[in-house]
């Protein structure tokens, strides 16, 4: 009896396994499957719909089926492992210039010009590709489509309550870093349990890049961290201004308390509850403050502040990861892969994502032609920050021995380093790493000169 039962159970398990196999059939002989990978969870729903529509209309006509997969966690590791095992999909989003450089050096990705129709594509979208960001060894591997813009996110109610208003009684956003400090102090003193500004120092890497370095580039230009490739030196002296600003905020005690254990999500949640006057935000905060932590307060977006007495020189943007074509695409139908590639970069798709408030397009023309009726004013404001020409600069990938600029920012925050000591330490650490990189040939300075 037991034996019969065992055999029945085994048979049942085997039958249920057979249900896992997928139907392939005759369809795949005519259709070419192009796999696209992305790490962006925010656009997953919208993109899946758009891809499905493409598959059912243009895709069917041209014999293309797009398989779109999103990896929301550990995307970098997935990519690296697939790259080493030659299992990259035809098209994938590759985050970060350093990763793209790595892949280009090892020939995991192919230059766009090597694909049929690639040169024409580059003429339309390539603009002026920069060596070290989109170009490696003179060949272009990626054309970014999306950007993230930054701005000052502020709580209009708290500004009005503290009396920081213009002649119409509307909240007046600060224009300079000095005004930010003053306003933060006024707001903190204006009520109980409200604080002027928030720095989520638990995520100090994010703060260093998105709340200090990029906003400061609006005043000081892309050369905020000056790198001299002839002397092989880094110059962090302009960071003294930012460190002094941080120390000023700390002195006034106008920051949300417990900053060392405050992460970005909790900080934005507190802002949504109306306890924080302002913070340096980015376009992704619109989604966060409308769906994830729906804001109880009336909030708006203003351009990032500049240093007093100086003019704004540029609008800093963050480049999102762009699509690269892997070497596996060369083994399949190259023209169909290129069709999909063009589709992913098309103005229509970017406009659709922009109108759905999911991503900000890189091309200013798309922003200007978009339909804004359904758009939140805050999203529109972030969209208006897209510059005519994207400013970006390639920096060498260094093997640092010691604190990064984010680590040093944290040390300045807790008071371990004065502004001057911090600048000295940064210069020393980065100079050593740059010199070492040139010595062991892992850095080629001619690329960046």
């Amino acid at each position, binding site marked *: 009896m037991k034996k019969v039962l065992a055999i029945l159970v085994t048979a049942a398990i085997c039958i249920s396994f057979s249900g896992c196999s997928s139907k392939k059939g005759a369809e795949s002989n005519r259709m070419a499957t192009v796999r696209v990978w992305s790490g962006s969870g925010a656009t997953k729903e919208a993109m899946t719909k758009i891809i499905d529509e493409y598959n059912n209309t243009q895709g069917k006509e041209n014999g293309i089926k797009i398989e779109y997969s999103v990896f929301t966690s550990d995307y*970098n590791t997935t990519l*690296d492992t697939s*790259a*080493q095992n030659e299992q990259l999909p035809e098209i994938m989003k590759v985050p*970060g210039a*350093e*990763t793209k*450089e*790595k*892949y280009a*050096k*090892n020939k995991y990705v192919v230059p766009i010009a090597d694909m049929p129709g690639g040169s024409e594509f580059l003429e339309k979208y390539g603009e002026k590709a920069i060596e070290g960001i989109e170009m490696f060894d003179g060949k272009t591997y990626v054309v970014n489509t999306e950007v993230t813009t930054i701005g000052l996110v502020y709580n209009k109610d708290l500004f009005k309550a503290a009396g920081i208003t213009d002649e119409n009684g509307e909240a007046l956003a600060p224009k300079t870093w000095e005004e930010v400090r003053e306003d933060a102090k006024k707001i903190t003193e204006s009520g109980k*349990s409200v604080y002027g500004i928030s720095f989520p120092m*638990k995520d100090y890497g994010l703060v260093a890049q998105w709340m200090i370095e990029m906003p400061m580039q609006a005043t000081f230009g892309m050369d905020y961290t000056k790198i001299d490739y002839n002397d092989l030196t880094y110059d962090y002296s302009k960071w003294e201004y930012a460190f002094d600003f941080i120390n000023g905020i700390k002195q006034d005690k106008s920051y*949300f*308390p*417990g900053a*060392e*254990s405050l992460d970005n999500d909790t900080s934005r949640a*507190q802002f949504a509850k109306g*306890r924080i006057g302002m913070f340096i935000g980015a376009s992704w905060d619109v989604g966060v403050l409308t769906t994830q932590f729906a804001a109880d307060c009336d909030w708006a977006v203003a351009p990032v502040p500049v240093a007093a007495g100086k003019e704004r020189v540029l609008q800093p943007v963050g480049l999102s990861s762009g699509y690269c074509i892997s070497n596996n695409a060369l083994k399949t139908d190259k023209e169909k892969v290129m069709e999909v590639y063009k589709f992913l970069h098309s103005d229509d798709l970017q406009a659709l994502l922009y109108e759905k408030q999911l991503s900000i397009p890189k091309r200013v023309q798309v922003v200007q032609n978009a339909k804004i009726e359904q758009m939140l004013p805050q999203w529109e404001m972030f969209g208006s920050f897209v510059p005519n020409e994207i400013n970006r600069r390639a920096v060498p*990938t*260094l*093997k*640092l*021995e010691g604190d990064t600029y984010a*680590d040093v920012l*944290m*040390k300045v*925050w*807790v008071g*371990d380093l004065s502004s001057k000591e911090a600048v000295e330490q940064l210069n020393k650490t980065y100079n050593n790493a740059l010199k070492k990189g040139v010595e062991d040939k892992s850095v080629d300075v001619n690329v960046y000169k």
Partner: protein
Amino acid sequence: MEKIREKYDKHVVASSYLVLAPQIIGLIVFSIYPVFWVIRYSVYHYDGITASFAGLENFIRIFTRDSGYWMSILNTFIIAYGKLIIEIPLSLMAAMLLSKKVLKCKKLFSVGFYMPNVLGIAVSAMIFTFLFSSFNGIINNFLIFAGIIKEPHNWFSDKWSAMTVICTHSIWVGFSTNMLFFMAGFQNIPDDLYEAAEIDGASKIKQFFKITIPMIAPTLRIILMLAMVNGMKMTNNVLLLTNGGPAGKTNVVMLYIYKAFFETGAKAQYGYASAMGVVTSVIVAIVTLAYLRISKKSANVY
């Protein structure tokens, strides 16, 4: 008769191996084999794609140029051993209370004491960040209410108060496991020893120090060794509570290695992180062996 027994033994042995095989294969593939890879990585510079032979360069860097690593080792020792000063007596007391016929609702207390362990490290660490938060944290509000401090203390702003939070959390989660070990140890003490001592006129305190402690010495020895080794492996709670603390001051060694491995992105230095792993395991081995040597006497108490 002998022949039949032999057959039976072979059959049992064969099926035992079969049953254990998945576990053993898993252990070899996922635990032992990667150790050899780590040792191999440690003599290379490796960024995930390209590797270049480095010889002992990584090890030289650890011993001469990386003060962050040795600071994290020091922090690990301070936290792992410092908390034992409170945790061991606490678990001993809890075990004593639950072993003797002192309390009426023993089962309720046993369950209650064990709950923190069930909750798990990650969840309880998140709860502790809210408890000790500077803004509306319960601990701060309670201390202000009791008049001990005047304004909310920022527990995570300096090294020693952050270490206090980490130790408190670690003790809260971990003492119940040690309590169970002690309770098991108490089972081995024969009651007639206590009766004899009672008859001889020994006080309860004397009984405790002269009978109980020596009799559970072997258990205590194992518990201390486990606590030390587990203390050195601590990462999750420090990561969630302080993320290495204000500017890396509460980094513990495993967290430091984890960050060197996974948080450097494309500038990954896997070779260096592996070298740190090798050095750390050697240090843990030395400490454990030294401890076992020193405490050998206590294993042969009776």
